[in-house]
């Protein structure tokens, strides 16, 4: 019987079974090929008089992929070659993407630090001639902190309660609708949120430009993010905990407040902080609603303010070297602010993880 089986499979187009050992390219091949391709890429770049180093890189990458594909097909067979091709393409993807991202960070840090100092952080642009060096971001920092703070004060409770509703109470059509529209809301462009507050608050209710108006738009952007992350965290709280508390006769709302939320609090805070980091970088609604100002305005409810991302945009628009320097420096401050929030948030998540993760 077993012989018949062998014969059948042989007829079925299976080539004679290869041994376990198959010809392999030596281990150093990829590195060797990489060096050769880079060399060739540079050679072609010089010979062809190509000005952009990006092109050299692209040519080298292309050469590497082609050479290693043909070589592997010859030596190891087409399946192995496809595997190698995928591997090299994925490495190329990684390298291609890393270059601009590293450059972004590098440029910001390198150009930003030229004017970034205590004076820059402690002064506004009041009375500064825009084409001359000097001035600072103090007013923009104040604006950002106040606007983001108000937005958080609005969005965090609403987002939190909505998440509680979805996880703890939500059944039926209303919950489905809320879930769907939270997802959709995540995709609302910031400029649209800004336009909405513009129509509603400034055009129809006839209020003036203010930090508060901007904060409302930021809150709209923040709510769905908070709902999503809080929802995820609440879902991680094991049902046994809720049941244990309910079985003791504790009312549901107290169970949620005293058992569910404290268990998930680490993750919730992380989610809120990541959301704060997200909206702190938004400039479009600020432009529509807060308008931008050169001086310090500590009152977010009255009159134009500035904000860090908007400050970057303004300084870029001025289009001279001094303002470019200020723009880079402000961008660096902004990135630092966002990164610190992110790192803190992740730190909290890790610190609280074993408790809520189980």
């Amino acid at each position: 019987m077993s012989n018949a089986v062998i014969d059948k499979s042989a007829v079925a187009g299976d080539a004679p079974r290869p041994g376990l050992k198959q010809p392999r390219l030596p281990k150093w091949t990829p590195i060797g090929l990489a060096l050769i391709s880079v060399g060739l890429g540079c050679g072609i770049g010089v010979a062809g008089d190509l000005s952009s180093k990006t092109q050299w890189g692209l040519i080298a990458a292309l050469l590497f992929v082609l050479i290693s594909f043909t070589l592997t097909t010859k030596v190891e067979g087409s399946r192995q070659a496809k595997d190698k091709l995928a591997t090299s393409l994925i490495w190329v993807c990684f390298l291609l993407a890393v270059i601009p991202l590293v450059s972004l960070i590098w440029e910001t840090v390198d150009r930003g630090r030229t004017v970034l100092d205590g004076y820059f952080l402690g002064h506004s642009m009041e009375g500064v001639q825009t084409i001359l060096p000097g001035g600072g971001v103090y007013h923009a920092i104040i604006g950002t902190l106040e606007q983001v703070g108000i937005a958080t004060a609005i969005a965090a409770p609403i987002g939190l309660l909505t998440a509680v509703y979805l996880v703890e109470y939500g059944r039926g059509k209303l919950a489905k609708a809320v879930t769907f529209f939270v997802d959709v809301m995540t995709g609302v462009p910031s400029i649209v949120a800004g336009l909405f507050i513009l129509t509603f608050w400034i055009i129809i209710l006839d209020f003036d430009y203010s930090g508060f108006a901007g904060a409302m738009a930021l809150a709209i952007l923040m709510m769905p993010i908070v709902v999503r992350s809080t929802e995820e965290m609440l879902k991680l709280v094991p049902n046994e905990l809720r049941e244990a508390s309910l079985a003791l006769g504790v009312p549901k709302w107290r169970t949620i407040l005293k058992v569910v939320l404290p268990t998930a609090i680490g993750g919730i805070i992380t989610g809120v902080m990541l959301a704060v980091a997200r909206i702190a970088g938004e400039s479009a609604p600020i432009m529509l609603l807060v308008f931008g100002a050169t001086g310090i305005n500590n009152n977010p409810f009255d009159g134009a303010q500035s904000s860090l991302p908007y400050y970057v945009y303004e300084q870029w628009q001025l289009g001279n070297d001094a303002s470019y320097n200020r723009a880079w420096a402000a961008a660096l401050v902004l990135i630092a602010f966002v990164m610190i929030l992110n790192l803190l948030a992740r730190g909290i998540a890790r610190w609280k993880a074993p408790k809520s993760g189980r």
Partner: protein
Amino acid sequence: MKTDIEPTSPTEPPALASSRGTGRIGDKVFLGLSRGSGILLLVIMAAIAAFLTVRAVSAISDDHGNFLTTFEWNTSSRPMVFGIAVLVYGTIVSSIIAMLIAVPVAVGIALFISHYAPRRLATPVAYVIDLLAAVPSIVYGLWGALFLVPHLTGLYKWLDDYLGWTKIFEYNDGTPRSLFTVGILLAIMIIPIVTSVSREVFRQVPQMHEEAALALGATRWEVIRMSVLPFGRSGIISASMLGLGRALGETMAVATVLSPNYLINASLLDPGGGTFAQNIASHFKEADGPARDALIASGLVLFVITLLVNGAARLIIARRKEYSGAAA
């Protein structure tokens, strides 16, 4: 007993004794608050649509051009003449370019992190990518305008030399503040977020599916094709849609990089064109009442487009879930 339970809402634990008044009132208040928040979210979404529509209608009735087909955005003259044709074109083209570049690269990086990179490299790379997803768009804009744009001339010349005959890649030595540049910048901006989401999905591929493929004698790439990508497909789609949503609505980065001229260019590399969000940002400061309404009308169109994209993404994911989630 039964008749007693029926009328109470199923969400409340059936209380035996009505004497526990505090619990019941507390429950009601809390339920009311949380349900109210959910409803508020719906109201906000409805209000965005309603308010924008009201202003948009008034603007379109003032429009002496055709809102959909006019190749002009002249809102300072009276009567106003404006149309969104160029914006639709610019927004869609730049987003498509961004997606064509970003999605394969992002999926590649996600696979790199989850399946290819040595462990010591994978963790920090994943961490850095997550952090980059948080870099504000204005910073990308600044970098795009002051660093990326000057560095693209060489590439564009090269494209022109070899592909110029297609007209699409024709390039006439201007500063390359074009839709193609916008597409590249948008791609760079959304790569981190698409990567993060895809990687999360790839990491959730059950070990046993991968081992099933391995045990059949699959190479690493075949394992990925047989088990990782099919399992992650809906995740990749949702990640891409998330990225697309960002690309469509991105304002400041586009406004800093593009030099708008309100024309549809045959060439993607030559400066010009415009997107919805960029157009609003560029015209807002000098816009008076009616001109503002015109911008709001274009904002409404952007809102509807992003709604459709997101809704479509949700539907795809919901349908996929039933199929692939069953055995997971």
